[in-house]
């Protein structure tokens, strides 16, 4: 962010101007990447709900507007994204991610048996955080080099961050990585039916304009018996912790966001989007509605529900 004078000045201009995002949405001409999206997004006639109202933070906008605004938010915070995550998770998001990936245990093979290939789709995987953990668990801990990960994100800037970071990985892990710019709500032509073992989305799904569409796509691309997994900020169960956390997130974080990234509005959006995200029970229902099965209660709370892991399985045909 700091290295992009153009972006910075736009962001700075908008911070004074209340919480509307439009001014900061970068005109396509200023960045070659962004111009591929959303302008060139194939408009499907059957599935196009672009005009439908959806939430953007606490504002209500159309779905296509939300897509653009979310793109703006993540373009402007891509580089400082980790710091934001640290703040929102009270510093524990790395532990959550570790737990999340080790609980999925990619590449695990029954003892004495031949390892089988696995293909993981890391949706909204921009920074690569989750994908790199999967590769490490699969290749190093579970000694299964036949595990590939495709990092997919709607935002080319986020993918760039991921690409840059992946250069420090061992060559074999880099070879098992691929990148895909795509909108998670419509992966047609980009990800084949029944092709994935694991669909994972961490801290991404609350930004989608149309969550049911994304869940249906997840169901489509997973193999029968494949697993849908989602790590997301969630609803705090304990009232006291909840009020403390809300105070922190609404009060402090946009301030800090302003200080570290010079971009108060983007952080404000992130906090509000967390608040708007469905409860654990409601999200579980969305997963069931998409055709997945769940086991037990279907989710696991982390740190009192500040975040939660949901898992679903595509039934065998």
């Amino acid at each position, binding site marked *: 962010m700091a290295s992009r004078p153009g972006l910075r000045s736009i962001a700075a201009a908008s911070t004074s101007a209340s919480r509307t995002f439009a001014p900061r949405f970068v005109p396509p001409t200023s960045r070659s990447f962004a111009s591929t999206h959303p302008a060139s997004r194939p408009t499907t006639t059957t599935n196009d709900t672009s005009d439908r109202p959806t939430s953007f933070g606490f504002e209500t906008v159309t779905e296509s507007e939300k897509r653009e605004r979310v793109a703006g938010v993540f373009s402007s915070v891509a580089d400082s994204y980790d710091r934001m995550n640290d703040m929102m998770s009270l510093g524990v998001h790395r532990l959550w991610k570790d737990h999340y990936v080790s609980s999925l245990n990619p590449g*695990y093979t029954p003892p004495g048996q031949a390892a089988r290939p696995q293909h993981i789709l890391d949706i909204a995987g921009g920074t690569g955080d989750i994908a790199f953990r999967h590769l490490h668990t699969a290749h190093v801990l579970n000694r299964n080099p036949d595990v590939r990960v495709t990092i997919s994100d709607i935002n080319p800037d986020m993918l760039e961050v991921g690409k840059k970071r992946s250069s420090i990985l061992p060559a074999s892990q880099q070879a098992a990585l691929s990148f895909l710019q795509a909108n998670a709500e419509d992966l047609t032509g980009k990800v084949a039916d029944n092709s994935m073992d*694991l669909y994972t989305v961490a801290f991404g799904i609350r930004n989608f304009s149309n969550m049911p569409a994304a869940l249906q796509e997840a169901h489509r691309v997973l193999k029968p018996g*494949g697993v849908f997994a989602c790590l997301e900020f969630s609803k705090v169960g304990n009232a006291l912790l909840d009020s403390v956390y809300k105070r922190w997130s609404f009060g402090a974080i946009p301030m800090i966001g302003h200080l570290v990234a010079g971009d108060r509005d983007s952080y404000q959006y992130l906090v509000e989007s967390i608040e708007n995200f469905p409860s654990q029970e409601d999200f579980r229902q969305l997963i069931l509605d998409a055709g997945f099965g769940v*086991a037990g209660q279907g989710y696991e709370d982390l740190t009192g529900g500040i975040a939660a892991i949901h898992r679903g*399985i595509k039934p065998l045909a």
Partner: protein
Amino acid sequence: MHPPTPSSGALRRLGTQRWTTAAKTSRQCAAIHMTTRATVPSTKQTLPSHAVRAAVAAPSSPTLPTVTQTAQRRTFHSTDHPPPPGPFGATESALLAAAYQHVPEHGFSSAALAFGARDAGFPDISTSVLPDGEFGLIRWHLELRKAELAGRAEEMFVGEGKGKEYKIPEKIEMLIWERLTGNKEVIGQWQQALAIMASPTNVPVSIKHLAELADEIVYLSGDKAVDPSWYSSRAGVSAIYASTELFMTSDKSEGFTDTRQFLRRRMEEARGVKGALGNVGQWVGFSAMGALNVARSWGVRV
């Protein structure tokens, strides 16, 4: 279906549900939505008192047992191992039932789960959907074996009222023994299972399972109200069951005859039949100690 709440009509029905043709193969299981508990009507058999109580508790229940037939003793390796009733969805049941076949060799472990998933035609990643991994496999065992008891009780007490009479303590002893024989195939893995059950996150569920088992045994032995003794209380049955079970994990005798005798002695002590332990004060001391150790083996931090 209802969640199993001890002593409710729902539990009674769950506890006696016999799974026959429902979800015979894992593929069929998987075809059923996971949260849809299979409600395939099953043939079941019940003690007469059972049916009466269930009828009283839930007069309009569609799952009331109607058909009575002789229960088949299930062998461990039967290919159509029935999913036990309880909190398991269809896909979860398919995964756990397949994995359970690997417990004698691989223990209650991720390895058993992974082998099972392959057997049932699932990709390796699929076991990660199970919320509590190997503990889920233990819960499967507990539900399965508890669920078998009602059918067995009917077989065991079939002569009752036709010339043969059993006293309640006798029936409790028979039921505990019957339930313990359900551990035979996995006994080599059971100490490890107890350790998993005793881990802090699992303790509440482990204790609930023990309490439910004790309730079931007390219930199947006849009406508790007519026999208010310690050995027929939930605490008493829990203590005697769990201590005998613990003994069994290190019993090397042929046919577990030592365990059988251990159980008999515990029952005799509880009934004050013989020896010094018949003395109430000492019995209380013993049972307190025993209950303590037993509680520890099932994970209570005391």
